[in-house]
């Protein structure tokens, strides 16, 4: 990207003249939303695992149905020794000490799907897990909505939404990341893979995880039964909700890798102060 392109972007005119090689990339709403997402994701994943522990299985059906179980955690005694198990699509793995039979947050181990270090609160506490989860679900929803409105107004959304013309550039960009190609394909502020990731997270993962979460509520089911039916019923929605969490964690890990490998301090600074230094990594991460 060139500085002249930068100058033509909305609002950049009201900023101080950027110093050579610097660009004001992230507005205050985007930065606030970003860090609120980070915090909300941490709290929602941990309190979500706490809630999950109360019924540590997922069924691809409306009501609970062991015949349609896709994931289950359990504990049993084998020769007097407790064993934790994880069953995925009928395949049972021994996961003692990590899943199924694990840290209970009270100084020992108990039958528990996810360990206390990964849940909020730590020890078994469904009531408070729900309090955390339902509070931060609002934080996530409001942050996503505020970001989308602000990004649409600033024009950022136009820069990061994946377009059909980006599709042929996805693979060349991946080859560049694999170091099998010298130059990234030509692109704007965000490269095609970044656009794909941000588009999927903003317009699929975030809305879907909120909607599947809502359908777990009997009050929402009565008000909008079509929504629950869309996901295959309440238990199926619970499975989708869990899968979306796993996908978001997957996205987070890739995102973190890109932050670290494409100029960590520059990336961090731009998401804290808004200013991004142009250089060798411009447009390749995170």
């Amino acid at each position: 990207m060139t500085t002249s392109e930068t100058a033509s972007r909305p609002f950049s005119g009201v900023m101080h003249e950027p110093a050579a090689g610097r660009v004001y990339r992230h507005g205050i709403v985007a930065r606030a939303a970003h860090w609120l997402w980070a915090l909300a994701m941490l709290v929602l994943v941990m309190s979500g695992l706490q809630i999950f522990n109360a019924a540590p299985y997922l069924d691809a059906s409306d009501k609970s149905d062991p015949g349609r179980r896709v994931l289950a955690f359990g504990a049993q005694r084998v020769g007097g020794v407790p064993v934790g198990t994880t069953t995925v699509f009928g395949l049972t793995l021994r996961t003692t000490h990590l899943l199924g039979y694990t840290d209970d947050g009270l100084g020992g181990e108990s039958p528990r799907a996810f360990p206390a270090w990964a849940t909020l609160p730590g020890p078994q506490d469904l009531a408070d897990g729900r309090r955390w989860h339902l509070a931060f679900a609002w934080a996530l929803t409001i942050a996503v909505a505020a970001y989308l409105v602000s990004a649409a107004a600033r024009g950022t959304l136009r820069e990061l939404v994946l377009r059909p013309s980006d599709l042929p550039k996805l693979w060349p960009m991946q080859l560049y990341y694999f170091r099998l190609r010298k130059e990234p394909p030509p692109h704007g502020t965000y490269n095609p893979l970044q656009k794909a990731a941000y588009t999927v997270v903003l317009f699929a993962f975030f809305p879907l995880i909120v909607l599947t979460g809502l359908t777990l509520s009997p009050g929402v089911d009565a008000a909008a039964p079509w929504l629950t039916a869309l996901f295959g019923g309440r238990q199926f929605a619970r499975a989708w909700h869990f899968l979306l969490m796993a996908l978001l964690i997957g996205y987070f890990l890739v995102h973190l890798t890109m932050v670290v490998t494409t100029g960590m301090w520059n990336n961090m600074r731009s998401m804290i102060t808004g200013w991004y230094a142009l250089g060798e990594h411009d447009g390749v991460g995170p």
Partner: protein
Amino acid sequence: MKRRLFVASSLSALGLTACGSVKDSLTNGPFRSVLLSTEKLNHAVIGTHGLAREYKESDVDRDFRVNGLDTPSDSVYTGLVRGGFRAYRLRVDGLVDRPQTLTLADLRAAGDRTQITRHDCVEGWSAIGKWRGVPLGTVLAMARPKATARYCVFHCFDADQSGTRYYESLDLHEAAHPQTLLALDLNDKPLDPDHGAPVRLKIPTQLGYKSAKWVRRIELVADYTPIEGGKGGYWEDQGYEWYAGI
């Protein structure tokens, strides 16, 4: 400086993950009021709209999962079971003009509704049952609630290990919902003791703990805070939401 900020935020994130005492102090400290206040927002937004989905006969769980506290084993309840609940009376009193004392026959005569609905437990599981009984609103109307009545409180026969009685409450809006049922039958048979015989509440628009089993008395009140732990129900007193539509 930015580095320090980053390191500090990373460390606090790690701390939140690893350190139980941080999680505990956040859950129970001043921040708790924020966590609790969300309930009002959820109630305002979701409320009690529409009708819960009703299912087909073939969707019914014939072996409906037993949940809640242990089936009462005190002499009063076991005596009622032995007598086939002929001695059972449901009292409807409190802020009403005409207190009622109803036999099971009175209840069956008062109204008749059958609904196949899904029971959603706060733990996360769901089961489908065929419930038959009398709409709660019909029974409350017989007692003629006074204008000051805002909630109905369900006093139950069951108690936990420490002797604390189960109870629940609904506001009169939820109580008047057409699917809020005083159930007498489950899956075409009178309720058995494990499923809340002889009368239980069944409110499919809220989580399972609202559907109190073994109901012995319905009290109309202006305010439920003087009752038991003051939060409007047995599980509410232990931190669960009073508004259980979510």
